[in-house]
């Protein structure tokens, strides 16, 4: 009985160590589409399987930083037969040009895609000039 308890303790310790360092977690640059509208720049970033709570979007006048962690896919009891989806940590930085309002950036996460809208400042907006 005592022998079983010891091995369980060791197993638990090993697990917690692994969780802290987690060499299996891989830093990945997510694919992003960028398009421009008259009022803003819009980013669509593929981040499937990411925990909503782990998503961080920070912006200042020079750069936009996006990060998120894709959590564990399988239950501990499952036997994984075939795996291509690695446990990963998404991270990407976009350098922002001038004339973008970093303080009015909006982001939403839908169907595994992070959509970030970076509005242009008044001067940067495309204005259609009427011909007299």
């Amino acid at each position, binding site marked *: 009985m005592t022998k079983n308890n010891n091995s369980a303790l060791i197993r638990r310790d090993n697990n917690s160590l692994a969780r802290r360092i987690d060499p299996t977690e891989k830093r990945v640059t997510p694919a992003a589409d960028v398009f421009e509208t008259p009022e803003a720049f819009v980013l669509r970033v593929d981040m*499937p399987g*990411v925990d909503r709570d782990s998503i961080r979007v920070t912006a200042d006048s020079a750069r936009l930083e996006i990060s998120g962690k894709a959590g564990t896919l*399988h239950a501990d009891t499952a036997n994984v037969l075939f795996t291509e*989806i690695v446990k990963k940590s998404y991270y990407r930085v976009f350098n922002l040009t001038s004339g973008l309002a970093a303080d009015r950036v909006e982001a939403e996460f839908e169907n*595994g895609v992070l959509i970030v809208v970076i509005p242009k400042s008044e001067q940067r907006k495309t204005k259609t000039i009427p011909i007299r």
Partner: protein
Amino acid sequence: MALIRWNPARESSNLPSELWNIERDFNRLFEGFFRGGMQDDGSFGLSVWSPAVDIAEKENEYVVKAELPGVNKEDVKITLESNILTIRGEKRQEKDVKEDDYRRMERMYGSFQRSFTLPTTVKSDSIDASYKDGILTVTMPKAEEAKPKHIEVKVK
């Protein structure tokens, strides 16, 4: 500007995993080159891109997960034919954006297809599929005869 294939492995600084990634990316390169090529069941699939898939086995069911970010549920078709599971569909480009307005296009679009031969028979009428946060999860309960049976061995 030269078009280079987007490679997430390039960003990682972990040397051993990078070597492992090179092999995987090599395979992916050939996969894309033959436009889908040979699927696991031996058939040829027509696909533009290939979603990453995981298959796990639990005691009474199989769970297949596929990375399908930005795909509409209506555009995914799951079929099971004599133990071969096929996940196919299309990732559509958002219609509200004109091609001229794109400044960068890295995400993969178009049709995809993956097929897998399952090790044992499954109950085809109780397959469940759900889609959340870009991950498609297909759960297939094993058929009665395929479930592991616990045999008690009495020692005389």
